[in-house]
């Protein structure tokens, strides 16, 4: 009897010690001496390709990012990884930025909605739609909705940055189908917009196909869908095929680091070099 109590007590003690050891504070050696832990997104991610393109990591359409970067396939794991590692650097869409990590200024510009609207913050990308001239009546009504106050409010609510607007939308009596195809980054917010639009216009169905920006542009040119979605600018070659670009929203990409890291500002060149593996220590960033 007594033996069993003793055994249980010893085990409980051992268990609590293990937990204590694991959660115990780490040593507070300076971040500057540490190797940078580079965290990136998986191949094919829209955020990753936009980031790579804007930061000059993409060379000749090939992503040159160092192969030793940690990869994750979700924004939340990205944030948690950076939150728990004082030497980490990562990036998330501005709409998903949480206050458990620190967003650095890029080239001295803070990642704020105002700076992105003013075109000062470099790491931002447009959410575009592309249309042809012979747009159907329903499709053009949907575009009107996207650009109206009602549509732009949804965009802001979803964490993206609205473009200027000022028109208000009134439902039409039309019925039919609008088909959209393209970027997987634009699609989530477009789904929300489409839902709202369909509740205003019960006789209209909006179909959204996620196929990637380029495939969306091709479908629009070929007439397989009414509206194409792109998380980049419409290329000149695509414009030549008869596409017109309309920006419905902007999305910023915030470069995030741990809160204990003293770095506040990085130049885009430094970020590029970190992701290319040319800068490997935080001390190389802090000393000028």
């Amino acid at each position, binding site marked *: 009897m007594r033996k*069993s109590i003793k*055994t249980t007590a010893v085990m409980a003690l051992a268990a609590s010690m293990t937990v204590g050891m*694991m*959660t115990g504070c780490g040593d507070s050696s300076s971040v500057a001496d540490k190797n940078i832990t580079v965290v990136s997104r*998986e*191949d094919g991610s829209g955020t990753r390709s936009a980031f790579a393109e804007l930061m000059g990591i993409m060379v000749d359409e090939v992503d040159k990012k160092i192969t030793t970067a940690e*990869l994750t396939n979700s924004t939340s*794991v990205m944030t948690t990884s950076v939150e728990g*590692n004082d030497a980490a650097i990562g990036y998330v869409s501005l709409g998903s930025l949480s206050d458990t990590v620190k967003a650095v200024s890029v080239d001295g510009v803070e990642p704020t909605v105002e700076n992105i609207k003013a075109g000062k913050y470099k790491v931002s990308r447009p959410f575009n739609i592309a249309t042809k001239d012979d747009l159907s009546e329903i499709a053009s009504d949907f575009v009107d909705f996207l650009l109206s106050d009602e549509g732009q409010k949804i965009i802001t609510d979803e964490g993206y940055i609205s473009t200027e607007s000022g028109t208000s939308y009134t439902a039409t009596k039309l019925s039919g189908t609008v088909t959209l195809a393209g970027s997987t980054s634009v699609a989530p917010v477009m789904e929300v917009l489409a839902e709202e639009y369909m509740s205003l216009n019960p006789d209209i169905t909006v179909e959204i196909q996620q196929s990637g920006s380029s495939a969306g542009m091709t479908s629009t040119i070929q007439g397989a869908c009414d509206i194409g979605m792109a998380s980049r600018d419409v290329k000149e070659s695509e414009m030549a095929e008869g596409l017109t670009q309309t920006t419905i929203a902007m999305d910023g990409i915030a470069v995030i680091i741990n809160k204990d890291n003293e770095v506040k500002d990085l130049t885009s060149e430094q970020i590029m070099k970190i992701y290319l593996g040319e800068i490997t220590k935080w001390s190389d960033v802090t000393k000028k």
Partner: protein
Amino acid sequence: MNKLKEKIMQVVFAMCACASILSVALICLFMLTGGVPAMLEIGIGNFLGGTSWKPLEGLFGILPMIIGSVYVTAGALIIGVPIGLLCAVFLARFCPKKAYKVIKPAVELLAGIPSIVYGFFGLVVIVPFLRDTIGAGKSVLAASIILGIMVLPTIISVSESAIRAVPDSYYEGALALGATKERSIFRAVLPAARSGIMAGVVLGIGRVIGETMAVVMVAGNQAIIPGGITEGVRTLTANVVLEMAYAEGRHQEALIATAVVLFVFILMINLCFSLIKRKGGDK
């Protein structure tokens, strides 16, 4: 009337039995038609033996992921098997009744924890702990520790019942020959329970190699062959789940082909399991 009822129920039971067979058959069919053509087009040698995985540049070599899966599985077994086995011996032979009432449900609870919870635990506890102590972070080691814990319930329950199934005469015989309690257990009882314990380990391997969510969160997922246990690793399962959402065309087919490779691994493990069980039954 009764006969008709009998017949109808027979059909119902037969259909239920067929449902599981049908699912397995359909999954096999889907995997083979989806994955094998891509594997052949890429070239089986290039696919299984290639060390570069750069889907956007058309390089589909999954050797780093195969090796990654093997490393992580081996690591999990190194951590999980000794702990699990000794725990099973303790539960079956040494444990006081009162402690058993606490430990046994705890082990069973361990089996019921969703893998995403293990992954999150690894991400916020194990990974920072490893980083502060040995500077490893997301690594083979972190994944092995998490999987080593996850595999414990399987190994413990199967081994425990195997040990309990050994006739008491073995144990008593060893004691009668003058062996100590410990010696009797480790030299007489454990060898007799060997095939059952092996079956538990093989089942554990199956669980480890197929585990996805927990691994993705703690392994780092770099598609390179790890140079040591403190480096990041990507397993076959992680490869599929990481990129499936965005993949299209050949890239998607290559991911299905990755799943085919995983599927073959699991088949081989199940085959081993049946063989071990049959061998154990022969005695």
